[in-house]
């Protein structure tokens, strides 16, 4: 049994839902993200948010998977601050939806000034509505710098680190994120983030408190079964079943339950 707390199912087939259910997935959370192209209007985001809050929960439910979501405009589309502000203005209309857990995945992409501005306005929106925050940290060479800029912005605006998950951590960012009191997520990606083996190494080096794993499966090279593959990696190393359950079920459930809206079955 597992929770995948970060997966972009709008990009995946119904067959993937079926395979995830067979592998033991009982609940997922889906952050809003970049579609692979820049959307031209706020109305485009409105339709996307309807998909995340209406269509995907029903599609997931066919396979016994509980679907939850996070809303935002992704940092890849934050250079257009005017459009970003239009999108921010429609997010509150979706906050009544019982499957919306918070604001995410917000953060930085290339660590630009406009991205910082839009990040700060997302943080303010989350704090105003007392919402959880799911943070995307930048890719590859930009991750180290971006992670520190994001943590500083969260601190400067008074966000409670216990209500913020900073995602896509790797060996060079995980310690700083945990030491500052945030939750941390490891994304299991074939080439550009953590492999299941490296994620298992990071658990062994940094412990299992406030740390989870996710697939971030999307329209790129990615694997919606990455979480059970990491479970299998921990199992073959001889780690205890309680440890495996903690990182792939208990930890996400503990963090996400702070929203008051997350639900996952206690047993399969």
């Amino acid at each position, binding site marked *: 049994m597992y929770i995948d707390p970060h997966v972009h199912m709008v990009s995946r087939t119904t067959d993937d839902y079926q395979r995830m259910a067979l592998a033991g997935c009982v609940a997922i959370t889906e952050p809003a993200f970049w579609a692979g192209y820049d959307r031209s209007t706020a109305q485009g985001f409105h339709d996307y948010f309807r998909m995340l809050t209406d269509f995907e929960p029903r599609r997931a439910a066919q396979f016994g998977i509980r679907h939850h979501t996070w809303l935002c405009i992704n940092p890849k589309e934050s250079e257009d601050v005017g459009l970003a502000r239009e999108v921010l203005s429609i997010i509150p209309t979706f906050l009544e939806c019982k499957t919306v857990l918070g604001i995410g995945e917000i953060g930085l992409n*290339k*660590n*630009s000034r*406009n991205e910082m501005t839009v990040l700060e306005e997302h943080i303010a929106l989350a704090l105003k509505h007392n919402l959880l925050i799911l943070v995307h940290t930048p890719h590859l*060479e930009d*991750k180290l*710098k971006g992670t520190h800029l994001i943590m500083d912005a969260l601190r400067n605006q008074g966000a409670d680190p216990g209500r913020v998950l900073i995602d896509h951590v790797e060996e*060079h960012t995980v310690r700083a994120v945990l030491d500052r009191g945030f939750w941390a997520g490891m994304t299991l990606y074939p080439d550009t983030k953590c492999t299941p083996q490296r994620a298992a190494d990071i658990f062994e080096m940094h412990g299992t408190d406030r740390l989870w794993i996710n697939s971030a499966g999307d329209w790129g090279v990615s694997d919606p079964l990455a979480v059970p593959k990491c479970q299998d990696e921990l199992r073959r190393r001889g*780690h205890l079943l309680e440890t495996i359950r903690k990182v792939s079920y208990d930890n996400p459930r503990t963090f996400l339950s702070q929203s008051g809206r997350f639900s996952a079955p206690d047993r399969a």
Partner: protein
Amino acid sequence: MGTPLTKQAVADLYFLEHRAKVLDLAAFLDRFDRASEPGADDFRVQALTAALGLVLDGQPERARRVLELWSDHSTQPIERAPMKGALGAMPLDARERR
């Protein structure tokens, strides 16, 4: 929590997988050498070969140190995003200029 595995078990479980990765890396560098110009001074390949020094230095936390070697260590936001994607490494001379 540490690793429950002995060194022998680690070698037994992972040797063949990483033998293949070393061969892939060697073949990639051979392919790069055989290829025609331009590109001999590609900063990404320079960053990759520079990382091998860290891999072989016998010190702990090689993965963290390699990622740090390839990272942008500046601290201020840039004026405007020049593109959507990332390249995987910073030019080594950019690190030296800082």
